[in-house]
């Protein structure tokens, strides 16, 4: 990609010195710049290269290639350009501009991969397939007599300790293997909200298993 090498420091933003390449991008993306349109095109070209690179990197998990994969990259780059141009005023010079801009297109690729999941879903949202749980957590079937009660306790905690939304998200991600970004699309939420809901569910479930003697709490382990 064409953004290696930013030796010269010749300007600053919020007291931070900026490299020459970053300064060039910021000047070009300024609304009044005579090269604004050309800079936007250059930004699109950069982000498209990154999107294609990222789509190829993740293509094995997607099961798509060729024009379909390239179309995904184009869509991600187009949306990322809009985001970057809209948010350029928030850039604080704490990294190179290109690194900052590229994280937006990486995120857009992830979003599109999440959408792609529902074109050929391999599982449903709500079916509770508890038979998958032992394999999901590497519980050896030979030792089923040992972990059977643990799984039963976990299932009871999922049913009785979690809120409806926590339970739905736990079931989708943990039991049914729905990728988190695909769940974001399905529920019309954002990644942070889904993660936080699952985080709270994990904390509640662990507390329940500790209380009922299936897991040791950290204090007793340290003692």
């Amino acid at each position, binding site marked *: 990609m064409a953004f290696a090498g930013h030796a010269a420091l010749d300007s600053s933003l919020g007291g931070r010195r900026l490299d020459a390449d970053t300064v060039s991008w910021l000047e070009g993306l300024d609304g009044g710049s005579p090269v604004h349109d050309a800079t936007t095109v250059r930004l699109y070209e950069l982000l498209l290269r990154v999107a294609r690179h990222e789509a190829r990197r993740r293509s094995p998990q997607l099961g798509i290639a060729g024009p379909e994969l390239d179309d995904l990259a184009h869509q991600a780059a187009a949306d990322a350009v809009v985001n970057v141009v809209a948010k350029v005023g928030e850039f604080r010079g704490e990294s190179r501009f290109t690194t900052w801009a*590229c*994280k937006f297109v990486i995120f857009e690729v992830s979003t599109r991969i999440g959408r792609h999941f529902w074109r050929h879903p391999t599982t449903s949202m709500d079916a509770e397939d508890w038979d998958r749980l032992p394999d999901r957590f590497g519980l050896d079937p030979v030792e089923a007599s040992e972990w059977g009660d643990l799984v039963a306790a976990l299932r009871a905690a999922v049913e009785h300790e979690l809120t409806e939304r926590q339970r739905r998200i736990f079931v989708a991600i943990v039991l049914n293997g729905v990728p988190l970004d695909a769940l974001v699309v399905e529920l019309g939420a954002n990644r*942070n909200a889904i993660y936080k809901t699952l985080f709270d569910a994990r904390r509640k479930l662990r507390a329940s298993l500790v209380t009922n003697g299936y897991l040791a709490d950290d204090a007793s382990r340290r003692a």
Partner: protein
Amino acid sequence: MTRWPSLERFLKTDPQDAGCAETFELLDRYVEREMAHGDAADRYPEVAVHLSNCNPCIEDFEGLLAAISDPED
């Protein structure tokens, strides 16, 4: 040594966890720090905790790292 390490690892939460939004906010700095010094986890421990627990965010981290690590692509 626990009897159910994978399950315990999944259920264990860390209050230091930055969450997805803050991780995205810091991701460009985290990646550049890792590239330059290899100590991003020390500089941004809350992001490191999150990346060890969140598959989508670790994918984004690896993608951004790959993007800026490969100037010829």
